[in-house]
């Protein structure tokens, strides 16, 4: 792999929940600018935890995480500022239910980035058009389908002009017929050169856009492989058995 600008770097990250349960074990990973990394692994393997550590929604035990060279775990780091540069999309969308779709897209721009309401609105409308939801601007999240809500959630993250995007199983709470509308937005984003860390079991998506696949099991990064090579030729027994299970469905 050629030397790229590092965007996200994890160095020997360890994390515990409580005194004895180690959820992340010596995880190291570098994500270059414009790279798309898919993280997969069995339930409970620590994927969500790993991705939450990147923008410090979860604190780490020891090790080092940097985003655009800024150390996440440094107490002197302005975390809110760093987080505003890293978009995050959640399994259950987490749109703000008391705000309209437009307000969801504007609140961060105005309150965090200090954009004027006018500026924010222009950006919000452009993003809604991009995810194909212009007609729903004035609605509340509860009035949209899951797939629509998740597209809004992606737009909300993009409204902050992030340098990287984190996705935690963005399609696993969706009805099957809605998965593609969300994946399409993500594929387009990947093709535009967005740096992405995506926890997903959507193997079609992974094959199409992932530069690398990270396989986690029991809190460890067990295997890192290139997009196709991981699926066609997994190196470890654990990855093989995991793949045989998910591909069986």
């Amino acid at each position: 792999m050629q030397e790229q600008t590092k965007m996200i770097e994890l160095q020997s990250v360890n994390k515990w929940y409580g005194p004895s349960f180690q959820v992340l074990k010596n995880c190291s990973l570098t994500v270059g600018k414009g790279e798309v990394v898919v993280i997969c692994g069995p339930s409970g393997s620590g994927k969500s935890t790993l991705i939450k550590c990147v923008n410090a929604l979860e604190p780490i035990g020891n090790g080092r995480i940097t985003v655009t060279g800024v150390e996440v775990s440094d107490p002197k780091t302005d975390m809110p500022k760093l987080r505003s540069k890293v978009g995050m999309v959640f399994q259950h969308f987490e749109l703000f239910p008391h705000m309209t779709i437009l307000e969801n897209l504007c609140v961060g721009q105005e309150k965090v980035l200090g954009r004027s309401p006018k500026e924010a609105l222009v950006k919000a409308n452009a993003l809604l058009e991009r995810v194909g939801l212009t007609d729903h601007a004035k609605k509340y999240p509860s009035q949209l389908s899951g797939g629509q809500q998740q597209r809004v959630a992606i737009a909300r993250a993009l409204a902050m002009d992030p340098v990287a995007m984190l996705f935690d199983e963005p399609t696993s709470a969706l009805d099957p017929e809605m998965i593609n509308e969300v994946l399409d937005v993500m594929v387009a984003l990947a093709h535009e050169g967005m740096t992405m860390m995506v926890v997903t079991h959507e193997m079609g998506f992974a094959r199409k856009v992932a530069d690398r696949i990270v396989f986690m099991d029991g809190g460890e990064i067990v295997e890192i492989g290139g997009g196709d090579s991981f699926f066609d030729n997994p190196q470890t027994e654990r990855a093989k058995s995991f793949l045989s299970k998910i591909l069986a469905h």
Partner: protein
Amino acid sequence: MKGWNWEGFFEYLTNYYLLEGALITLGLTVFAMTAGLFIGFFVAMMRMSRYKILSAPANFYIWIFRGTPLLVQLIIIYTGLPQIGIKFTVIQSTLLGLALCEAAYLAEIIRAGISAVPTGQVNAARAIGMRESQVMRYVVAPQALRIIIPPLGNSVNSVLKTTSIASIISMEELLRRTQVLIQEKFLVLELFTVAALYYLAMTTAWELIQRRIEKRFGKAYGPMSVDAH
């Protein structure tokens, strides 16, 4: 046996002095709720803090004020404290006692409301870069407010009646003024019935208001949630 005096009853029912007493009761209620919400919010925030130095005093405060009768609190404030040189007037003691006591109850209601907002919402707000105060202001508080509207409404009803306890330290609210008027003609039953009707009128009016508020905020966010298409 004197029997029931209708004339006296109607006279007191429209008595200006009593009506004013009812207004004072109303004023005490508004004050207790407003000050209680304000203090209660800070107590709730302290209580939820992960720092013991903040949560311990809050716990202690709630324990004391919810664990002792308001009657005893008022007597201590008005009659007891002067003994150690702290003097409050009747009105000051009443306002202080009501606010402090109500704050303890409201703190628990507020805390429950805030805790009921899902962590995912907090994470989402943090993830777009909001500072903790912004997370509270723009995301958690508006959602918690909806959750606490019903218990808050019940508190208003309860405080309306509880203010009568202040009569014990001669605070001239509705009940105290009723007792004062009894000295005129000793129409005990008639006067207390009038007082009861005044309380009933106030709690009933509030119930109607509360019902409207809950109707407005009780449903899903936004105009009636329509099935997505």
